[in-house]
């Protein structure tokens, strides 16, 4: 039961990164691939109808974590107090940028929100990556079962590291590149003309750089969390997910080389999902790793809600989760096609919203 909920929570968060990831990516490329007002409106129209739903995966995944592993939620969130609050502020600013830009027709108004949208998206990608880095590296969980971590302290990974150290910044940078590539492919898929060409070029460049950086990230991960790989080697599921990862990355590479943006986007989404899935499967059952003393780590069994509650929640999750997946497919279908900047084709996906 704990393993099942570990899978559900990890799966929901991986879906979150895969979905909201492309609109963060689109955001951080906003000022680069779109050069004038019309092009920038195209970008917003491309993510407009879906970004809010994407973000709900974080809320729902967070809710599932809270329900299934309240101890991890309590210890983790209070331990990461300041970085989480800073992240929230950026989330708010970015959300407002998308929502409010179109309300006033004024170049200064638009320029301001364009900038906050791009900077906000880039910062969120960086911080989410650093957050993942923290979870992998571990936090100073001590004998009280809690921890408090400063934003920065020792820059080289050690027990005195803050939220930002060499390893977590490296993961953050990798995430910015990989989500940028992901967003670029989404935009390439949804747009035409110069925005399409620039997005595809950006995606190629970003994914190539991420690919080159990946061995370094893996090597660094071996240095900070060797136990992850020891456990991983003995688990068939990890191998299975790793094979899928290679498959997804191959589809991505083929799509990038041949310029088929839809195919590449599917490969890109799969790469993000399976990469996180592989990490989660290797990490089981640890939720919060102590970098002071491995035995102080918080695992799924210690953090979980008793089976009765988990079973009840499973009942409604079996209804709710397929429904949520259904919404994603439904939205993707009804807003399918390229976004075009002319009256005749407002019907092909320009119906953007908040």
């Amino acid at each position, binding site marked *: 039961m704990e393993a099942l909920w570990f899978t559900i929570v990890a799966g929901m968060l991986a879906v979150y990164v895969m979905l909201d990831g492309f609109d963060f990516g689109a955001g951080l490329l906003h000022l680069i691939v779109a050069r004038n*007002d*019309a092009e920038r*409106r195209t970008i*917003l*129209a491309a993510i*407009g*109808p879906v970004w*809010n*739903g994407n973000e*709900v995966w974080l*809320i*729902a995944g*967070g*809710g*599932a974590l*809270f*329900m*299934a592993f*309240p101890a991890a*939620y*309590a*210890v983790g*969130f*209070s*331990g990461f*107090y*300041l970085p989480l*609050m800073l992240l*929230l*502020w950026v989330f*708010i600013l970015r*959300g*407002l940028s998308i*929502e*409010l830009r*179109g309300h*006033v*027709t004024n170049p200064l108004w638009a320029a301001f929100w364009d900038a906050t949208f791009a900077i906000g998206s880039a910062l969120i990608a960086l911080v989410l990556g650093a957050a993942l880095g923290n979870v992998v590296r571990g936090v100073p969980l001590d004998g009280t079962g*809690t*921890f*408090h971590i400063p934003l920065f302290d020792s820059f080289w990974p050690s027990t005195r590291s803050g939220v930002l150290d060499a390893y977590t910044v490296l993961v953050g940078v990798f995430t910015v590149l990989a989500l940028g590539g992901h967003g670029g492919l989404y935009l390439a898929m949804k747009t035409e003309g110069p925005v399409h060409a620039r997005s595809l070029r950006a995606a190629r460049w970003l994914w190539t750089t991420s690919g080159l950086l990946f061995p370094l990230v893996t090597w660094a991960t071996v240095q900070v969390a060797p136990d992850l790989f020891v456990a991983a080697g003995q688990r068939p599921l990890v191998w299975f997910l790793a094979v899928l990862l290679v498959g997804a990355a191959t589809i991505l590479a083929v799509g990038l080389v041949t310029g088929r943006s839809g195919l590449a986007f599917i490969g890109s989404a799969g790469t993000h999902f399976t990469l996180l899935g592989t990490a989660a499967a290797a990490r089981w059952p640890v939720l919060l790793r102590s970098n002071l003393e491995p035995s102080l780590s918080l695992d799924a069994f210690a953090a979980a*809600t*008793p089976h*009765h*509650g988990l079973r009840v*929640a499973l009942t409604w*999750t079996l209804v*709710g989760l397929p*429904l949520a997946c259904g*919404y994603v497919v439904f*939205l993707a279908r*009804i807003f399918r096609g390229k976004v075009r900047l002319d*009256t005749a084709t*407002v*019907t092909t996906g*320009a*119906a*953007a*919203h*908040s």
Partner: protein
Amino acid sequence: MTDALFWHRLHFGFTVTYHYLFPQLTMGLAFLILLLKLKAFRSGSALHEEAARFWARIFAVSFAMGVVTGIPLEFQFGTNWARFSHFAGGVIGQTLAIEGMFAFFLEATFLGIFLYGEKRFGPRMHLAAAVALWMGSWLSGYFIIATNAFMQHPVGHTMDAAGRLQLADFWAFVLNPWAIWQYLHNMTASVVTASFVVAGVGAFWSLSGGHAEHASLALRTGVVAGLVASCLMVFPTGDRHGKLLAEKQPATLAAMEGLFESQAGAELAIIGQPNVQQRKLENPVVVPGLLSFLIYGSFGSTVTGLDRIPHDQWPDNIELLYYAYHVMAGLGTLFIALMALSAFQLWRGRLERTRPLLWALMLATPFPYIATTAGWMTAELGRQPWLVHGLMRTADGTSPRVSAGNALFTLIGFSGLYLVMGILFLFLVGREIAHGPRSPHPRGVPAGSPGLAVEAA
């Protein structure tokens, strides 16, 4: 100077109060927009369709503010109230997770279709989206209130060996009687807020002499819905809520009524200032026997006063609780009077010629916000000193590793951010109202949409 507990409480109190300014309008408006849409769909009335579109633009801004200010609340359970989350997460995690999975996905999916998909998907789909939005927002309201109701009146739980609360009976927890009455009271209040806003905007247009047809429609809609909802606030929802309080939280009831001594034939204080040190109500204006009657249906019954409650179970801010409750109840009474008078004039066909009444309706717009805020302060201050009533004290729920300095830092940050957002909200909504109900854009695409820009291009 002050300990971390104080800052954590102020932090949550401020962010949740601010957040709720927005959903109360969107939930009520979702309902009124649905009524307008239904009317337009059945009769083909272009006026109702245009009105629905106008209110959808206001809805969009308010909804966006509600979403972005709502996320920090779920986070704060973990960040600021870690011991509480650890203690009660096994129970309240259920409703919070259900809210995300069943309400938020529904809302987020259909919001885009509703706001900007009218042309593309046709009137039938558009109406369906309006229904989905209304359902999503009202469903979300229920699950969050069921969560709060558990903190007010915990049911359906057991305590495990580690001293944490666990779910025992899902349906007892979700169908908590407290949740049902609190929900009805709260949702009716959100309709009151939306009705006053709609009527207030109608009064503004009418007084300033523009958009005559729309002014009439807004006044009609706002006044009729406002009168019905204002009456429902008092009876049965407020009445039943009060009786539950007397039964489950006698300390809260005594404190909010300023009843220091238990009394047979207890008086209802209309005005007065509680002096907690001397345990008396100063300058009281009271109605004899009325409190006993309201709670027990007989003028002679005895109502428990604070004297029979152990001192360590008294709410810790009796003065503020008392005023919050009296502001809510006083405003609620005035709302009925204003809406009844307006409805009477409307029925006689003279509302739009009664300028003083239009002025009153216009100026009354902010007051439901004050009443709902005071109402929630009554509920939350009244629950003190408990975080989960009878089971966990507020002082025991905070995050042990988050210092007062950190909490104050983020409180200052939120204050600044929310101030800017408040200004933006008033600016954008003010623009829409001043512009009026006619579509601001040549081809009838709503504002706020990148799609609008797309069309205009």
